[in-house]
């Protein structure tokens, strides 16, 4: 007993009794890797192959074609309207929800989550029921003033806003709850007025979380398909977003459509940039993000 090895010191979680035998470990890793490869990685590789397989010239021709440019413009315009609205309203709503107690708060938070669960197609249909010039609730009003919402840019903006509604506010609520209001109360007690407090204390505290939410919101806003399909009417050059344009090109030429994949690669590039910035934010400013950010 005396010459036995010293009792192992419990260091930080290392291997020992909770670790499976190596063959179990490595087979599980292999299974996980195969799933990821088959379902997630391969689509990306295939997309890049199909988009650039015929050379950069073909890719560039497809991407710089006038209809594609129009679609890109509409997509960017939509995002430029949707993201700021959802971000600004999201900040104020998160402020009210996290800094005050009021009855119905839980209901309000549940309603904020609602668009995550509603099918984008259903969201589009709801807008049709409101704004259709023939059978919508506002048909008379719209026809009287000759306003076009459906099959025009406003419809696309509204549909996208519905679908991306929760992204920013959902990121901010847990973050601001975690941070508490001590610093803001201190600022107030030192005589800062409301806006000084907001710009000097609140905003700097939430900026990384806000950026995170804005990032996810923009990515979804530019890639949205289902809701936009219903309200757009697919008028080339007018109500065609990039996502819709991918479908148009794909349907024209089927699986051989290099042009469809080229345009799709633009959207995929966007998604990859989003992912990289997201990873950077999580790694670099993880402590300034909400703990529950992984959920969406």
């Amino acid at each position, binding site marked *: 007993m005396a010459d036995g090895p010293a009792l192992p010191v419990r260091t930080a979680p290392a291997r020992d009794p909770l670790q499976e035998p190596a063959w179990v470990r490595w087979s599980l890793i292999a299974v996980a890797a195969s799933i990821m490869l088959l379902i997630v990685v391969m689509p990306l590789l295939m997309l890049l192959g199909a988009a650039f397989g015929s050379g950069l010239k073909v890719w560039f021709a497809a991407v710089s074609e006038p209809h594609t440019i129009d679609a890109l413009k509409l997509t960017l315009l939509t995002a430029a309207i949707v993201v700021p609205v959802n971000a600004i309203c999201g900040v104020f709503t998160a402020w009210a929800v996290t800094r005050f107690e009021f009855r119905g708060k839980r209901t309000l938070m549940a309603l904020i989550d609602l668009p995550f669960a509603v099918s*984008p197609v259903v969201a589009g*249909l709801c807008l049709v029921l409101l704004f259709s010039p023939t059978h919508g609730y506002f048909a008379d009003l719209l026809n009287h003033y000759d306003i076009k919402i459906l099959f025009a840019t406003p419809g696309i903006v509204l549909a996208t806003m519905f679908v991306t509604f929760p992204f920013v506010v959902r990121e901010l609520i847990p973050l601001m709850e975690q941070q508490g*209001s001590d610093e803001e109360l201190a600022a107030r007690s030192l005589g800062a007025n409301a806006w000084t407090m907001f710009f000097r204390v609140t905003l700097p505290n939430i900026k990384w979380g806000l950026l995170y939410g804005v990032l996810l919101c923009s990515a979804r806003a530019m890639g949205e398909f289902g809701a936009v399909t219903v309200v757009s009417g697919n008028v080339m050059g007018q109500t065609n977003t990039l996502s819709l344009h991918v479908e148009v090109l794909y349907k024209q030429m089927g699986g051989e459509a290099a042009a469809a994949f080229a345009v799709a690669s633009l959207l995929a590039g966007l998604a990859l940039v989003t992912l990289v910035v997201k990873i950077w934010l999580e790694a670099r400013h993880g402590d300034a993000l909400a703990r529950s950010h992984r959920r969406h």
Partner: protein
Amino acid sequence: MSEQVLTLPTSATRWRRPLPGLGLGLGLGLTWLGLIVLLPLAALILRSGGLGFAGWLRAISDPRVIASLKVSFGAAFVAAIVALVFGAVIAWVLVRYRFPGRRLMDAMVDLPFALPTAVAGITLAAIYDQNGWVGQWLQPFGIQLVNNVTGIVIALIFIGLPFAVRTVQPVLETLGREQEEAAISLGASRLTALRRVILPELLPALLTGFSLAFARGLGEFGSVIFIAGNLPMKTEIAPLLITIRLEEDGGVTAAIVLATLLLLMSFACLVAINAASTLFAHGNRRDG
């Protein structure tokens, strides 16, 4: 709707906080929520109520409507289960093991969130097609993965996978070693410890992951329509039938009925998620 439920705090009910902006924040928030989300949803509910019993009956007695609902529910259910199993394995591997490429795998899990659904749709269709990277190897065996329900399930697994991983992963990360060690030191085998100690802790997260994946799969449109073949009565999902009916004369009724049913299902999933997270909160409190 909800505006009636909300009442501002009076000085009698709660002590006043010296922070400004409740009126502005709540006012802006409610206007935004009301105009962008609640007004459109109210339109659907009103129209759906206005159809009356006869209208509903007529819409529901259309075999194509029933078939599309069956396809949607069945595919979303199967895909959510598969995504949950796959997701649990991936989350386990990511949390418990260290191996080269782990961080890359962790990062790639979010790709289906970020990739626009239409892009996912055309690429998945191209891969699993009979000439595709995967499809060509199965073609000689007579296995076809696209233009049938399998294709729909594949697309929905892609969509649901990150939900499953990202709900299970954080719970696995916070799971203490003590109980597991205790179980093993008391003579439990690895599998028993997994079944009796880890699984119960994981259950609420698994339920949440399932509900999220199921809800998302039920309403998914972009990634499915390219791979499904969209044969009426066979591989036509409910959201697609909504868009088809909407373009037909007098098809709005069917579209409204289908959308209402999908919406009700979404509500049910939200309720299930909330119930699961409450369950989870209680479970955590018990451990201290």
